[in-house]
């Protein structure tokens, strides 16, 4: 293949979600725009041992299905009532019914019918079974309650503590 001057259309690039969201909520009459977390530095810790000898944990923003909390899809409208407010954990060895109706995902282009697109735990079990890594005995759910202070001061330390209990070596985080 050779590059030509027949370039891709300008819109065909990663979406500028922050700008799009700011404009959108302004139009909805919400004049207190969300301030996304922003740092100039980022931490880095190298893997200490080969991945096949490391315990990997899944961290998700998906919510456990709660039958008493209204329509959670697939295809449900945004359902703030299905949010959760403290870290939860589940047994990695079994299947779980997780949903994303509490999150602003792309409802036009995503049906939310296949949980494997946001919760890759079954696939991680297969990879672990094939020896790619060791799967931590629990996965953890991180609340998305728009309070960054709660995330920093309560939820992140709680997730770290649970990872340490399970002697986790590395984490795969899957936000929706």
């Amino acid at each position: 293949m050779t590059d030509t001057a027949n370039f891709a259309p300008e819109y065909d690039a990663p979406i500028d979600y922050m700008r799009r969201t700011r404009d959108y909520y302004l139009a909805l009459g919400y004049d207190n725009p969300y301030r996304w977390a922003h740092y100039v530095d980022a931490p880095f810790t190298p893997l200490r041992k080969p991945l096949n000898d490391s315990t990997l944990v899944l961290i998700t923003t998906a919510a456990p299905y709660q039958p008493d909390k209204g329509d959670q899809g697939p295809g449900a409208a945004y359902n703030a009532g299905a949010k959760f407010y403290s870290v939860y954990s589940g047994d990695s060895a079994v299947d779980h019914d997780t949903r994303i109706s509490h999150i602003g995902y792309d409802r036009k282009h995503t049906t939310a019918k296949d949980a494997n697109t946001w919760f890759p735990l079954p696939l991680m079990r297969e990879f672990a079974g094939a020896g790619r890594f060791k799967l931590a005995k629990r996965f953890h759910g991180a609340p998305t309650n728009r309070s960054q202070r709660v995330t920093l001061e309560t939820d992140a330390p709680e997730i770290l503590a649970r990872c340490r209990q399970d002697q986790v070596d590395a984490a795969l985080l899957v936000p929706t």
Partner: protein
Amino acid sequence: MSLVARYLERNGIPTVIMGAAKDIVEWAGVPRFLFSDFPLGNSAGKPHEKDTQQFTLELALKVLESAIGPRTTVQSPLRWNEDGDWKQDYNNLARMPAEEVAKRRAEFDKVKQVALDQRKKAGVA
């Protein structure tokens, strides 16, 4: 989620994020990021396409293993569809009739109230 990744990383646990909102994750600044240029909700691959899900997970693992420093972003070569037109839809006012904006405004006011009540109940408001 970026905040959690940073926190774990700073406390000795290497992390990789699989995500679809490139600007938001990079704005926060994370150690390792596998970006899929897919509609939000598909961070781990395409629906009912196990091969793309396997490919995405394997690529994230490679990023975890091979990144040489923080703010490593790798973009998955997978495409959601041929023309990429879906990117012009998400919360795009330019594609939304005025009555749709008005409808969403009314719905949004309701949702905000539900969220506020929940936060109060949970003691985090």
